């Protein structure tokens, strides 16, 4: 039976992430999901942008495309549409995905092209040393918000839903089992899927915002999140919901394109 080691590029370990960085847990869950789905390594392309999170692509033993900040989904669209039989997984940082990459994010969602965008939301720009991101939220301390952040944060779930994603979910690095479960659903969904994973950057977000060590931050995810529509949520509105928010079947872009070809070549409808 294959183990995680069969899916990683072992020679690059230990990885460059800081002690306690949640990105490693996402990596582990991603691989576990692929393993449990028994997908072939040759059928998977991992496309990433730039950032600590984006380094994931270098560690997995799939076809890997490490691109430009914010552009991963645009590259991925080319990969997917040109060869729809491939599974395209796009791990992204929150800044990468929603700051500079926001437009590609909403357009990939709009087209409902079958790819999985994993938004590794640590609420900070890790790679560049701790500037606030569009997911930091009000009041957060970051190197570019010394007086407290006044930028509202996006709600990734709402944005993805409004843009047209047909599968949208949220989980955290504490909830590793749920993460794996959601990844499995996402990878098999026929349409654009977004999975937001709340993850910890102890080095910058944790330190700047006095949240203690990595374990404390993971504990925070445990305490401050709850399943969608749980009773707890009714009582305490401040809780963040976890689970699958959107899961609808609607025509996927590549299949629709096949119909265009059929129409153009006069073969069938």
């Amino acid at each position: 039976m294959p183990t995680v080691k069969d899916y990683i590029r072992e020679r690059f370990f230990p990885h460059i992430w800081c002690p306690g960085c949640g990105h490693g847990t996402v990596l582990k869950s991603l691989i576990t999901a692929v393993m449990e789905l028994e997908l072939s390594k040759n059928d998977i392309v991992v496309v990433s942008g730039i950032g600590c999170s984006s380094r994931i692509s270098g560690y997995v033993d799939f076809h890997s495309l490490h691109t430009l900040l914010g552009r991963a989904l645009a590259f991925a669209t080319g990969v997917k549409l040109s060869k729809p039989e491939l599974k395209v997984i796009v791990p992204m940082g929150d800044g990468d995905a929603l700051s500079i990459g926001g437009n590609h994010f909403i357009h990939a969602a709009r087209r409902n092209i079958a790819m999985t965008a994993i938004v590794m939301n640590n609420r900070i720009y890790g790679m560049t040393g701790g500037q606030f991101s569009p997911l930091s939220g009000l009041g957060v301390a970051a190197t570019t918000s010394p007086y407290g952040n006044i930028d509202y944060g996006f709600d990734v779930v709402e944005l993805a839903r409004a843009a047209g994603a047909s599968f949208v979910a949220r989980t955290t690095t504490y909830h590793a089992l749920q993460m794996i479960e959601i990844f499995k659903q996402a990878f098999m969904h026929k349409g654009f899927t977004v999975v937001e994973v709340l993850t910890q950057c102890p080095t910058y977000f944790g330190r700047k915002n006095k949240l203690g060590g990595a374990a404390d931050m993971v504990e925070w995810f445990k305490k401050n999140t709850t399943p969608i529509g749980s009773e707890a949520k009714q009582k305490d509105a401040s809780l963040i919901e976890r689970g699958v928010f959107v899961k609808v079947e609607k025509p996927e872009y590549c299949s629709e394109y096949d119909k265009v070809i059929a129409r153009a070549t006069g073969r069938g409808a």
Partner: protein
Amino acid sequence: MERCRLVFSGSGGQGVITTAVILAEAAVLYEYLEASQTQAYGPEARGGATRSDVIISDSRIYFPKVTQPNVLVCLTQQAYNKFNDIIRPGGLLLSDSKYVKTESRVDARQIQLPMYQEVTERIGKPIVFNICMLGAVLGLTDLVRPESVMRVLETRIPAGFLEMNRKALDLGMDLARKVIP
């Protein structure tokens, strides 16, 4: 004074870079000397051995990197292994007894001090480990006056912590004095 080239090395959390900056700043602001400080950046700098170069001189410094330090400080074994061979023959190599096992073949004045141990025992706050190390460097080189270092610290840390840092600095200097009669 003649030009002194230092390399401080250790691991991420040890405050190696801060120490280098404090020393260089003290030289420039309160000793009217010239100084430059550079450091390794990037993800690589995150894990593994961090390094910061400092040059102190009474004349202008053009090339700010240090290729052959007169003074090399290593706070971890990894750093020691990586950098010990760049030291200027006969230079001064300071390391911490707890973290580093030295090798004999290194052509330098190797000095080991139980800085970490002493700091934890007498002050109980490992954060000032780096300041203690700086004290030791001063004790061994007289590069700048401890007062100058304290004046820099005053601008950087809350008053409440100054005393503790002063202690660490003196501790380092004492440890150094013990080895040089």
